[in-house]
């Protein structure tokens, strides 16, 4: 009898095990109850930039650009400066000043008259700006030439013989001669490769000297350009500009986001001011976002964390750059939240600029950091 009951117990135990082997799938049942017990585990916050946001220009400016610009269009004027070392040579027959031009997108000037004017050679390509630029030593051009900026082939300008004397000496004395290339023509802008574009190419401005027995290529010793596009005095806008290397700094206070939060999405949203954007507010403008690693902004020598960068583009009046992993690094204290630096991606190869509304603007247009994040259920800690 006892044995039968024990056997019944065994069967019951086996039945229990079979009973519990049935699969179970997670279901939405009880979701309302669970969410009620663990409220606000998913959150969405929109942070506005701190009032310390600012724009600045770095010293290297146009001297480090791989392109040089010449032209005058849509409130954007640019001059190019080039310096050649004088050389000792005899029996010069002919000389040409050569370069390759390309029209600036949307600002094709077509046929323009170039003026080559004499300047000194003492300017510093890292510090010269439109405001402190070296003016030509004479308003009378050394020579002028008409070019078609749409012609992307190499342009060779014959240098008048009387001008050649400034570049060539017949004794062993050496020196430097600077020239300014500009145009009075309006309505367009064109660009040419600079010395920084390629040291192994002669696509940058250069002199070609023909003697009876030889042909010499004379490369410039330095080149740069200046542009009248300057930092705006308006407090309600910030600007990023290629070429003249204007940059902007933003800081967002993320102290309200807990350290253990998982950042599901963070978007930097900027609204452009078309009126203050050059040369074409409708053109796409690429920008880069880099984290600042210092809590104090000591411009222009900012300490950046070079292991992280994000890119975005203004395709209209606004831009949204995904900065999820950066905010995650900030909240998890992997990075110090020193703010973010905005630069033009084509800083050394373009002259476009984009102005956007700052923290001093109205709340609808000021820079925003739109963050979705989630938290652990906090009921147990």
């Amino acid at each position, binding site marked *: 009898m*006892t044995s039968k009951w024990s056997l019944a117990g*065994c069967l019951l135990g086996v039945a229990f*095990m079979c009973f519990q082997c*049935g699969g179970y799938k997670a279901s939405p049942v009880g979701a309302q*109850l669970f969410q009620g017990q663990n409220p606000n585990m*998913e959150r969405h916050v929109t942070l506005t930039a701190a009032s310390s946001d600012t724009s600045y220009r770095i010293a290297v400016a146009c001297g480090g650009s791989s392109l040089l610009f010449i032209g005058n269009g849509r409130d954007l004027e640019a001059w190019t400066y080039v310096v050649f070392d004088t050389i000792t040579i005899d029996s010069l027959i002919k000389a040409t000043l050569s370069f390759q031009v390309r029209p600036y997108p949307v600002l094709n000037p077509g046929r323009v008259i170039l003026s080559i004017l004499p300047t000194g050679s003492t300017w510093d390509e890292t510090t010269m700006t439109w405001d402190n630029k070296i003016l030509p030593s004479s308003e009378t051009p050394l020579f002028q030439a008409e070019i078609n900026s749409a012609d992307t082939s190499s342009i060779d300008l014959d240098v008048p013989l009387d001008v050649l004397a400034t570049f060539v000496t017949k004794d062993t004395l050496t020196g430097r001669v600077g020239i300014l290339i500009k145009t009075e023509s309006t309505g367009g802008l064109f660009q040419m490769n600079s010395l920084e574009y390629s040291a192994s190419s002669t696509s940058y401005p250069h002199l070609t000297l023909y003697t009876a027995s030889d042909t010499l290529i004379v490369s410039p010793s330095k080149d740069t350009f200046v542009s009248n596009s300057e930092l705006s005095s308006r407090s309600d806008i910030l600007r990023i500009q290629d070429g003249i290397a204007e940059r902007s700094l933003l800081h967002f206070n993320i102290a309200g986001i807990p350290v253990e939060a998982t950042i599901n999405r963070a978007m930097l949203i900027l609204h452009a001011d078309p009126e203050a954007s050059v040369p074409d507010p409708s053109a796409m403008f690429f920008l880069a976002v880099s984290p600042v690693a210092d809590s104090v902004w000591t411009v222009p020598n900012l300490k950046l964390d070079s292991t992280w960068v994000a890119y975005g583009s203004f395709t209209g009046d606004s831009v949204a750059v995904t900065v999820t*992993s950066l905010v995650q690094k900030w909240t998890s204290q992997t990075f110090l939240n020193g703010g973010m630096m905005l630069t033009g991606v084509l800083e050394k190869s373009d002259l476009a600029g984009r102005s956007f509304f700052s923290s001093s603007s109205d709340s609808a247009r000021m820079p925003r950091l739109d963050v979705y994040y989630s938290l652990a259920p906090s009921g*147990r800690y």
Partner: protein
Amino acid sequence: MAYQKYARLGIVILLTAVFPPRSHSSVLSSAGLGLPAGDPGARFMGMGGMSVAMADGQTVSSLNPASLHRIRLTQLAVQVVSDQVRFRDESSSSTTTYMNFNGFSFAVPLGRGLSLGMGLVPRTRMDYWVSFSDSLDGESYFKTVQGSGGLNSAELTLACDIRSVVGFGLTGQYFFGKITETWRLLFDGAQFTGTNNQINTRGDGFGVTGGIIVHPSRALSIGGVFRPSLRISTSTEIFGSPLIATPATRSGNMNLPSFWSAGVRYETPKGFSAGTEYFEEAWNDLSVNGRAVVRLQKRSRLAVGAELMRGQLPTDGYFKRTAFRLGFYTERFFLADTRGGSIREIMGTVGFGFPLVTSASHLDIALGFGRRGSIADNGLSENCFRVNLSATIGEKWFERKF
């Protein structure tokens, strides 16, 4: 032959005890520290959970330490519990199944009215898995959360019997446990990254439970038990962002609530007994780092139960030695519904006690059918089928020879 029977029984106990739970309990276990567990035993569950005034030497209650004061044999008891729950809310329903080890106890009579007991008892139980879709400011997401673990107590009990009239018991308890919760979040938007995080909360602390059972007459027993609130120290690891190499840790504490219970039992000379019991546990006092836990409320239960066991002598027939039990309880659940209203739990139970080999060893089975809440009043309901199984081996181990 006796060894074979023991072996068979051992296999059942072992398999049911160690078999890993492959399914899940109710989402209601996601609240607080999980569902309050710590059933007093299958025998008592067969009587609606009534155990506070029970002290007859056959079974030890894990609720009242004074229940040891009448044991005359060494006892070893192992328990298994299984719940099948059909949870419904206003939108849909699902069925969950849970089965696991439900504690063991070991008690030794020391002689001269003293008894010593020890045991391991699950006190809370968390085991849920919920998935659902939701949205946040227009961004829809899919969320899955799983939780498991709970709080257990390792216990050491000393009980004394004074002239078979009054029994006292005092249990020193070491509470320990771990709760693990993982949650995943997947937004529909392409630029979103998902969440796949985990928290592990470990806790431990010491508590004391005191109990008394008075026998004013041979037929009547009155019992009471009280445990003051106690402090649980916690350490939580938060595996949040994958960018953090080491998890964030938080130290804190919880205030585990007090409980008290009182009951009465009347037993006739022919082996019929009946009683009632009131139990109250102040879950509304549960706090985490000083913060009250939302929606928890005082748990209170009123139970009535009866047992019929006409004979206990080895010479009695097997059927005569088999116990039949019946019980019922109504309980105010420890968690309020989403509207803040109380959830009522009612359960009817039947139980059987099958003697094994000797009259002191028995296999107890309790079956419970009940319901928590109602769709109309609470927006949710659970129909529950519960099985408690416990095996108690009673032997004359450590019997005094002098």
